[in-house]
């Protein structure tokens, strides 16, 4: 039976809540669109980005962890907390191995691209982002 967009989002959400990344952040893990607006905590957002409907279902899930800047100077210059970003990047990079163990019904889980960090102008946060590719053999 094929998995739906919501089922996959739920599978990854439940699994990611059990990972070292979830234990390390000061905030919580959220499904896409649920993170409280204005949160100043380190939150991880899980979003299904792509999904096909073939017998071997494949798709991508985005895992985005928001991080607060180290300081904000009077002139508005925002300084990234490089050390913290590196810690979160390392935990994010190891997600596929943890998820393979936590989600044995999936047939493949691997990085779709490299882990990177970026800046969100609107909320003045940094975020670590990665896409994870999954395969699920339907029965």
């Amino acid at each position, binding site marked *: 039976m094929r998995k739906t967009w919501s089922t996959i989002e739920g599978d990854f959400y439940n699994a990611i809540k059990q990972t070292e990344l979830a234990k390390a952040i000061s905030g919580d893990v959220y499904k*896409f669109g649920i993170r409280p607006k204005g949160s100043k905590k380190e939150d991880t*957002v899980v*979003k299904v*980005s*792509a999904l*096909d409907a*073939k017998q*071997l279902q*494949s*798709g*991508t899930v*985005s895992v*985005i962890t928001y991080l607060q800047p180290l300081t904000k100077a009077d002139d508005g210059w925002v300084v990234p907390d490089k050390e913290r970003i590196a810690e979160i990047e390392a935990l994010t990079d190891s997600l596929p191995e943890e998820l393979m163990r936590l989600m044995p019904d999936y047939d493949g889980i691997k990085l*779709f691209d490299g882990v*990177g960090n*970026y800046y969100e102008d609107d909320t003045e946060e940094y*975020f670590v*982002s990665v*896409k994870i*590719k999954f395969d699920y053999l339907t029965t």
Partner: protein
Amino acid sequence: MRAEFELDKKSLENVLKNFKERTEQSVVAQLAEIGKRSVEIARKLPDQGGTYHNRTGKLHNSIGYAVFKDGNVVAEDFIDPSGREAAMKKRDGSKGGFALVIVAGAEYAMDVHVRGYDVIDSAIINAEKEFQEWLSQNR
């Protein structure tokens, strides 16, 4: 009673040369078909449920593909020149043999991608599947 059919060295070379050319044309045609179908998926995404807001059409139109043979473009489909420019930058990685390159050339394509949206995820997944299927059928 016997019959002999001789193939001199020059004729054999011509046969092999023609065979190689037809095989190479077939490889190019196959990669172009995979590229075309995959890019169609990506270009239709915003209209199939709005994975991101395709307000100007620029991102959508920057998606395209190129097939390289020994570093030269032998097939392509681009709407916006930014897509072709992005594909040409990948030329260095495809100097030997054949390569299918799928790109989103808009400057902000990566910004959209890292925020969890499907720019060419579905296209890449489709291309991977079709490529593996074609390889397994022709091994």
